[in-house]
């Protein structure tokens, strides 16, 4: 591993990251690096610590030890909203959208302006906001649903809305936790197409089980097992790794 000498071009550098819950190490001495514009997929069996890694990066879970550097900034010391402001966006596994608000309002809240108390009091819905919201709504197939309350949307549409909310944040690092889980076949195809479009010009960290999807998009794959890296590299390399076959793909 590369501990100690960390070339500058890495967008995200996770080093010796450990988190333990009452002695159980969900993530154990984990190190990996994500470059600019890289699409990295994390796979692994249930309980491997995949979601926990995303939780640690976005600040939802505090690390026991180790460091997470994003553009040279130490994320483990920042609060969740500060991490978002440095340019890290996170989509959760279950769609988390604001059901009592309309699609427009959901997207507007994610628009990166007026995030302080005073800023949100004086926030104006000007043409720049409207234009951006409409642009994103078109991308996520919800252009004609702008005035619909989010609780009226289907599961797949909620997933798209949440992806749209991240998109409007315009993060440099986008983290997606099982973005196509629970979708119908046609929704899945549309989502894959959507994701392919939005992952341009930014780095993406994806957790996904759908191997075809992974093969489609991944530049590099990291296989996690019991909180540690089992294998890392191209899909081709990982697929043929006997350790991976044993714990994961072989099942």
């Amino acid at each position: 591993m590369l501990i100690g000498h960390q070339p500058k071009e890495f967008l995200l550098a996770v080093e010796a990251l450990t988190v333990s819950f009452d002695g159980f190490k969900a993530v154990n001495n984990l190190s990996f690096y994500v470059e600019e514009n890289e699409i990295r997929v994390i796979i692994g069996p249930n309980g491997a610590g995949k979601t926990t890694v995303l939780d640690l990066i976005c600040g939802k879970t505090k690390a026991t030890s180790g460091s997470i550097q994003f553009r040279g900034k130490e994320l483990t010391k920042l609060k969740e909203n500060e991490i978002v402001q440095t340019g890290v966006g996170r989509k959760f596994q279950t769609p988390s959208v604001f059901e009592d608000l309309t699609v427009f309002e959901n997207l507007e809240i994610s628009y990166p302006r007026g995030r302080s108390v005073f800023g949100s009091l004086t926030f104006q819905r000007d043409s720049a906001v409207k234009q951006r919201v409409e642009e994103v709504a078109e991308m996520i197939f919800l252009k004609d649903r702008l005035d619909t309350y989010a609780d009226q949307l289907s599961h797949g549409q909620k997933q798209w809305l949440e992806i749209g909310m991240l998109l409007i944040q315009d993060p440099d690092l986008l983290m997606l936790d099982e973005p196509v889980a629970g979708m119908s076949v046609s929704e899945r195809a549309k989502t894959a197409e959507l994701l392919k479009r939005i992952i341009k010009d930014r780095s993406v960290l994806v957790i996904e089980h759908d191997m075809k999807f992974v093969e489609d998009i991944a530049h590099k794959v990291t296989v996690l097992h019991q909180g540690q890296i089992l294998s890392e590299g191209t899909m081709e390399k990982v697929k043929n790794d006997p350790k991976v076959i044993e714990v994961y793909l072989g099942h």
Partner: protein
Amino acid sequence: MIINSRFFNRSELIGFIALAAILFVILPLSLDAFRLNLVAKYLTYAFVAIGLVLCWGYGGILSLGQGVFFGLGGYCMAMFLKLEASSVENTKIQSTPGIPDFMDWNQITSLPLFWQPFHSLTFTIAAIILVPGLFALIIGTAMFKRRVGGTYFAIITQAVAAILTILIVGQQGYTGGINGMTDLRTLKGWDIRPDHAKVILYFVEVVLLFGCIGIAQLIRLTKLGRILVAMREQEDRVRFSGYSVANFKIFAFCMAAVFAAIGGAMFALNVGFMSPSFVGIVPSIEMVIYTAVGGRMSIFGAVWGSLLVNFAKTSLSESFPQLWLFGLGALFIAVVLAFPNGLSGIWSDYVQPRIDRLLASRKSKPGSAWADNSVADGAPAE
């Protein structure tokens, strides 16, 4: 301005006009001064209820300690009035003239330091806003920054209410103890006790109430209002959209505290005394019930809830003093279980659609407007 859409939508505008007509015209014309003063007393709780709509209905922060802020506002006002009522001339029979009577009874011989600035009305008005506001800021910061929320927060606010009551009762010499501050007489030399003064105070209060309604509506319509709703549902999503959830909760809690304090100050003026029985756990819970009955998502509903529950309280507790508390409890349970959006929910779910249908059918078939079947198969609203 910061308003994105119209200030009131159509049904809110109707609600606003109806409330304004009733409070400014109908009640003052139809009630005698005594009854009008009762309404003024009920309306002081409406300030608290409006604050709870923002904080609880919108932000999802249930505070069971709003009596604390109502009390702080009320005591600030009462301290000013009490000092004015305790002039050397009025209190010359005391062993120390010029200090409030209860201090004299408790062998205090000089006015305590924290009482001194309450000689000034300007200071008092500032204190009515700032003391509860700062106190809410401290509690809010201590709780929300540590992510204490939900039931735990509600319990802590209850504890604060209990502590403040005990403190006020225990420090009799400084606060008037269990009796509170009574015998408040004049405001800058203007006697607040006669009927015509009560009527003027009633109108002052209603104007302030509409001011608070306006501020609450303004907040509701900004992005901050939508963030409060968003936070109530998906706190994490708000956090991971780049907002500091704690700061927004603190803001909502402080606004609710300031509204409650204005209500408390008006209570001291209208009712003429202030006591710890409006500070503790029971009144705090009652204030939540007013909000729940009126509808916790509705600013106007909060006013109606305060008026109606208090009206029922006055009339029923006169005839069935033992049963009243059970009735209030039953009312709360019934509202929470059957009508979670309270009276305003009943209005918007059952009454408003009928009115809309009626209007729509009138518009489409002028002439046969009041025929029953035209309501039943009424044309859809345009």
